[in-house]
């Protein structure tokens, strides 16, 4: 298959095959062509050249509906369900069973119930989708694919918003679909999952086929990583140790509406402190209170001995406390505005007398950080939405580094949705900043990342800090067990 867009060859002559009943991984950095491939497969867009064959027959389809008919179903990261309708209604959407225009409610429910049981999905068919968790919604999407007798189901980053328990349920469902002979295309950034689930693997790089592994058991992870990046990456963390100075950030008694039990901790200058916990453990709530994005109920945040005014991001920023938020799309980037404006938004107050902006200085500032952080963008005028996740994260980092006196950097999920190459660049930057004396707080739900880059870890569970680990004492099993609610009960 080939597909070009003006100026870019997004997919160049890529071919691969998948056996019936196989789970096939599709990996590659952002921009490698995975999304394009998925789009062609889903019928959303048409290829410039190339064919899709199922059981030896060439499939020609021009729309998403045609792809459904052909038995190819793509389950996107953003789920395509109507929240106000019930599970059963969603599964029938587009072809409601009806007699003379009147809904056949009996059939609507009974058939769905049978299908859900069939694939082992435990969801009430008459529940509204809005009342389901993200994991359950995804199950419903998969059930929809099963209802349409899908022969090929493509899952695009299916676990990105699932808890580990929900992921396990998904994995067992995938195993059952596999046993039925369905082809599963599994697109993911997560090596662990791919190696655990997939029988075979295709690696894309710059729109081209970088490698095809019909038998994944013969391949190592390092090999796949270097195929993705096109160069050897021996250790993506690249951890560097540093000397720690005085206590820089002191948090006392911090609590708020969504974090009722108070929290205390300290970070030293030059130290990288990690927060690990499962989804809902209160990590992001804690960062928002810390930064003043949400109202505090109690607590004091002290930087270098001076208290920071609560409930106000501007006060935090002036005191040198900045936050790179977890959800970049919702809380980080300013869509529709340029890279330059996204960098200058906060720091421009430092060089804008009487509120008059200084275009030349803003341009210089943007160019400086585009160079320094190696932000890949055609120009500083580019709309930020067109940058990859990693480059958007760098822009937000640039926004804060442009502030003269940042003393505490809080970075929530520093590399979510970011490809391997950009990841190590961001880690290296964090080490540099810490070495220059900054106190850094990293929040992450990826344990290898927290263990890989931090000097110390605080584990959160149920809105409390349950345990602390020094780097020398890092132990994957113990950290995980401190994060799970049930094991915590038995601890004194």
């Amino acid at each position, binding site marked *: 298959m080939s597909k070009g867009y*003006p100026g*870019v060859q997004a997919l160049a002559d890529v071919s691969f095959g998948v056996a019936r009943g196989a789970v096939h991984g599709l990996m590659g950095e952002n921009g490698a062509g995975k999304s394009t491939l998925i789009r062609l497969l889903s019928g959303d867009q048409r290829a410039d050249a190339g064919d899709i064959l199922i059981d030896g027959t060439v499939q020609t389809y021009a729309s998403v509906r045609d792809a459904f008919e052909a038995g190819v179903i793509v389950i996107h990261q953003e789920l395509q369900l109507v929240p106000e309708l019930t599970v059963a209604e969603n599964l029938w959407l587009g072809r409601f069973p009806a007699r003379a225009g009147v809904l056949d409610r009996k059939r609507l429910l009974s058939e769905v119930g049978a299908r859900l049981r069939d694939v082992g999905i435990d969801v009430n068919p008459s529940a509204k989708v809005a009342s389901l968790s993200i994991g359950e919604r995804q199950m419903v999407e998969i059930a929809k694919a099963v209802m349409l007798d899908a022969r090929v189901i493509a899952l695009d980053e299916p676990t990105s918003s699932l808890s580990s328990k929900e992921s396990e349920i998904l994995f067992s469902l995938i195993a059952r679909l596999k046993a039925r002979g369905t082809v599963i295309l599994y697109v993911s950034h997560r090596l662990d999952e791919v190696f655990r689930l997939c029988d075979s693997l295709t690696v894309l790089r710059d729109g081209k086929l970088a490698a095809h592994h019909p038998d994944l058991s013969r391949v190592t992870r390092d090999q796949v990583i270097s195929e993705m990046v096109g160069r050897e990456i021996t250790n993506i963390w690249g951890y560097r140790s540093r000397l720690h100075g005085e206590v820089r950030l002191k948090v006392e008694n911090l609590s708020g509406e969504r974090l009722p039990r108070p929290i205390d901790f300290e970070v030293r200058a030059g130290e990288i402190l990690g927060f690990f916990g499962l989804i809902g453990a209160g990590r992001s709530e804690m960062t928002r209170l810390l930064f003043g994005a949400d109202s505090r109920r109690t607590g004091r945040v002290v930087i270098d001995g001076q208290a920071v005014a609560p409930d106000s991001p501007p006060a935090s920023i002036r005191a040198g406390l900045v936050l790179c*938020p977890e959800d970049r799309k*919702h809380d980080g980037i*300013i869509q529709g*505005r340029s890279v330059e404006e996204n960098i200058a*938004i906060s720091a421009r*107050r430092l060089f804008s007398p009487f509120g008059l902006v200084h275009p030349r200085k803003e341009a210089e500032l943007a160019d400086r950080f585009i160079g320094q952080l190696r932000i890949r963008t055609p120009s500083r005028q580019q709309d930020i939405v*067109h940058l990859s996740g990693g480059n958007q994260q760098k822009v937000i980092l640039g926004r804060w580094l442009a502030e003269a006196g940042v003393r505490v950097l809080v970075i929530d999920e520093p590399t979510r949705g970011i490809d391997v190459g950009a990841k190590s660049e961001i880690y290296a930057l964090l080490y540099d900043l810490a070495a220059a004396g900054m106190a850094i707080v990293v929040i992450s739900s990826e344990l290898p990342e927290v263990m890989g880059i931090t000097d110390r870890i605080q584990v959160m569970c149920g809105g409390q800090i349950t345990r602390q680990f020094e780097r020398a004492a890092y132990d994957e099993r113990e950290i995980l067990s401190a994060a799970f609610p049930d094991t915590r009960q038995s601890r004194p």
Partner: protein
Amino acid sequence: MQSLKKILLGEQGLVVIFALAFVLVSITVPNFLTERNMLGLLQSVVTIGIVSCTMMFCLASRDFDLSVGSTVAFSGMVAVMASNSTGSILLGLLAAITCGAIVGVINGVVIARFRINALITTLATMQIVRGFALISSDGRAVGINDPAFYDLALTRILGVPAPVWVMGLFFVLFGFVLNRTVFGKNTLAIGGNPEAARLAGVNVVTMRIWIFALQGLVCGVAGILLASRITSGQPNAATGLELSVISACVLGGVSLAGGRAAMTGVIVGVLIMGIAENVMNLLNIQAFYQYVVRGMILLLAVLLDNLRVSAATMSRR
């Protein structure tokens, strides 16, 4: 063909279309391109033009203001009545501008501080303020006592009436504010992503209150000039102004989703509205048809904008 498409759908597409339409109309419509008609045309768009300046900020920050028409009428009434009772035009003008600004601040506080939807809030204040305008004079028009008040609209500088100068000044001023001040940049940032702007240190609540306050204040100025031109305070003046102003902004490429605005676009939008009306008057087209034409121009402009956005994303991928 390809290059024509490129020009029309490009950044300056609207300006090009406007220029073409202007030339076409100048050639085909008699009496259009005369000094008298041009000045008349400009004078007829003064109210829309002035109010569009701040409506642009409102829309660019993802807000909305339906109360502008009522505020213009109300502050016009206040200007006339306060001048009459105090005997001082200056006091009348100050009172009008203050009243406009107060309406704006109330809008802003309710919307930004109490987080009530802008559409609902300004729909309510639109009716309340119109009510005040009617109550203040028992629904009657109020004549101006001091003839010096007329001079506001009649004075000509270099042959151009003062209100047109004021409109021009506002265009320059708010164009500068949008592009060259932190206020303007923050307005666009809030429109682009309010939560991200807040977390980047922009004081979103204060900004939004200021935008509405400015909007009210500018409506006060527009109300004064309108009262002076129609030589009285009319409680029913400027009905439907909100729709014309929003149309002009949208015509000018201001995004209703926020984050995108340009002063030149808005000026062109205002002029297109004015020219359409002017030409229809010159051609003796019945007023009823003018509604249809105005609506169609707006629809066409939005469709064009849609094409432009999709063309831009296509070429980027």
